[in-house]
C-alpha cells in the first residue's frame, strides 16, 4: 500500500504537532518570556507591569548580594567536583579492578541516595547537623573534640561548607557508575602489557585508566556543573532557605526569594537571565579547557 502524500503529512502532524505545542507553550514560551520580563518592573498584578529598560540589570550589578550568590554557587560547583570526582574515581577503580567479591553490594548502596528526594536528603542532613541531637556533634564529642561542635547550619562561616557533604553524599553513586562503565571498556591487554613493563598500580592508573576514561570524567564534570548551577537552590531552600544572613544564598534561591516571596517578578527574571548566561558560559569554557585529543594506544 502506498500512502498518499496527504496521509503521510497527516500522520507526521499527528506525531509531532500536539507534543510540540505543549513543549512550546510550557518550555519555550516561558524561557523567552522570562527574558522579556527582565526589562519590566512588575509586582505580579497584571495591569501595572512597567517597562524600565535595563534598570533591573543596573540593579543586578549594584546588588551586594548578587556577587555573594554567584560565589556560593561556584563554591558548591568546585567543592562538589573535587569531592565527587576523587571519591567516585577511587570507588570505581576499586570496584572494577580489585576483584572484590561484594562489589555489587557497594554499587547498589552507593547509588541509592541518587534517587532520594532532595527534601528527604535535606531534612535528614539537617538532623545530622542538629546542634544538640545530631550525629556530627555527638561524633565530635565522642572523639573528645567537644570544642569543635557548633550549630553548623546556623553559623555564617560553616553553613555553606556544610551543604557540600549532603551533595557529595547524594551524588557519588551516579558518577561512580559512569566511570565504572568507562573502565570496564578498557581492554585488559593494556594492563597486561604494563605489568610486563613493570608499571606499578599507580603508574597504571595515571597512564592507562585516567587517559582512557577521560571522556567519562569530562561528561561527569560537565554534568556536575550543569546540575549544580541549575539545581543547587533546591537543597539550599530545604536546609537553610539562604540563611543565616544570606550566607548560603545561591543564585536560584535568591531568584525564588525575590520573585515568589517579595514579588519582584521583573528582578527575579533578571536573575534568571544571569543564571542562564553564566551556566552557558561556564559549560562552554569548561568544554574548551577539557578538550583533549582522544587517546589511543
Amino acid at each position, binding site marked *: *500500500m502506498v*500512502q498518499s502524500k496527504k496521509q503521510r503529512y497527516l*500522520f*507526521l502532524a499527528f*506525531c509531532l504537532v500536539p*507534543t510540540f505545542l505543549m*513543549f512550546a*507553550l*510550557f*518550555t519555550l*514560551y*516561558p*524561557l523567552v*518570556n*522570562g527574558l522579556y*520580563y527582565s526589562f519590566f518592573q512588575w509586582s505580579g498584578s*497584571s495591569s501595572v507591569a512597567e517597562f524600565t529598560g535595563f534598570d533591573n540589570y543596573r540593579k543586578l550589578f549594584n546588588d551586594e548580594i548578587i556577587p555573594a550568590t554567584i560565589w556560593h554557587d561556584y563554591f558548591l560547583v568546585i567543592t562538589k567536583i573535587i569531592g565527587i570526582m576523587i*571519591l567516585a574515581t577511587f*570507588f570505581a577503580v*576499586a570496584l572494577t579492578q*580489585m*576483584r*572484590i567479591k561484594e562489589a555489587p553490594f*557497594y554499587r*547498589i*548502596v*552507593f*547509588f*541509592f*541516595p*541518587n*534517587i*532520594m*528526594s*532532595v*527534601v*528527604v536528603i535535606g*531534612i*535528614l542532613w539537617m*538532623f545530622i547537623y542538629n546542634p544538640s*541531637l545530631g*550525629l556530627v556533634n*555527638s561524633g565530635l564529642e565522642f572523639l573528645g573534640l567537644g570544642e569543635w561542635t557548633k550549630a553548623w547550619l546556623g553559623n555564617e562561616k560553616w553553613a555553606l561548607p556544610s551543604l557540600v557533604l549532603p551533595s557529595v553524599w547524594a551524588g557519588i553513586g*551516579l558518577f561512580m*557508575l*559512569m566511570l565504572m562503565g568507562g573502565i570496564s571498556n578498557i581492554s585488559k591487554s593494556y594492563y597486561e602489557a604494563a*605489568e610486563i613493563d613493570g608499571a606499578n598500580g599507580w603508574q597504571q592508573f595515571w597512564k592507562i585508566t585516567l587517559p582512557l576514561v577521560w571522556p*567519562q570524567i569530562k*561528561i561527569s564534570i560537565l554534568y556536575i556543573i550543569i546540575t549544580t*548551577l541549575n539545581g543547587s*537552590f533546591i537543597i539550599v*531552600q*530545604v536546609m537553610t532557605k539562604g540563611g543565616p544572613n544570606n550566607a548560603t544564598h545561591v543564585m536560584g534561591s535568591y531568584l*525564588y526569594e525575590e*520573585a*515568589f516571596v517579595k514579588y519582584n*517578578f521583573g528582578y527575579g*527574571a533578571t536573575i*534568571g537571565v544571569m543564571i542562564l548566561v553564566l*551556566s552557558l558560559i561556564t559549560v562552554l569554557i569548561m568544554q574548551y579547557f577539557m578538550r583533549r585529543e582522544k587517546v589511543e594506544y
Partner: protein
Amino acid sequence: MKRKQGFWTKIGVRIPLVLWSLAVLYPILWMILGAFKSNAEIYANPWGLPDSFSFGNFIDAWSNYNIDISVFNSLIVTGLGALLTLVMAIPTAYALERLRFRGNRLLFTLYISAMMIPMVLGWIPLFFLLMQLNLLDNIFGLAIVYAVSQLPFSIFVLTSFMATIPKSLEEAAAIDGMSPYKILWKIITPLSMTGIITVTIMNMIQFWNEYFMALIFLQSENNYTLALAIDYISNETQYTNSWGTLFASLVIAIVPVIILYAIFQRRIVKGMTEGAIKG
C-alpha cells in the same frame, strides 16, 4: 609475570568502601528507626535502637498533618504526569527516529538541548501562564508541567530504544495494509516496552520526589504533594520538636522509592547513567 594483589591492599581498599557504605546506610536506617521511637526516646537516645516499635508517629503524621491528602495528591501527580509524558513522547520519538522530514535533526536537537537549559528562568512566566489557564494551585496543572519538563529526557531515551527495532517489521506490516497509526500502536509501542518502562520508572521517581516546582505552583495545603507536606512538617518541627512525626513522614515518602529500586535497580541505574551521558 602476574603480580598478585596483596592481602593488605585488599583490606586497605575495603576500609573506605565499608566506611562509605556506613555513611550511606546508617542515616537512612536510623531515620527509619526514628520513625518508630517516641519523642522522649529520640532525645534520650537519638542514634540507637528503639525500645519498642510503635506506630504512633505514623498515625500522627497521617491524620494530624494531612499526609493522607498529600500522598493522594502525589500519587495523582506521579501517575498522571508519567502517563502524559508517554502520550506526548512516544509518537514524537517515533517520528524523530523513523520518519524522514525536513527539520528532523533540528527538532531533535531542540528537544535535547532543553535538558541542559536552566528552567528557573522559565518558572516565573510559567507561574503567570498557569494562573491565566486556571491551573495554578492545581495538581493537574502541576502534572502537565511535570510531564513537559521530562519530555526531552523521555524522547531521548525512547528514540535510542526505537532505533534498535528492525525496520523490516514495519515494512512488512505496511505492505499488509496496516495504517501508520496502527503500526505505531500495535508494533512499535509493544516492541519498545523495555524503553517505555525504563522511562516511566525514571519519570515516576522524579515526579514523586520533585519539590521546587510544587513549591512555586501549589499554594493551598489541600493541594500539597508529599514533598511539600514534609517540608511543612520540617518547618513546624523547629518549634514543636516532634521529630518522630517528621521521620514517619520521611519514611512514607521514601518507601515507594525503595520498593521501585529493589525491583528495577538495573533499569534505574541504566536510565540515569544514559540520561547523564547525553552531555
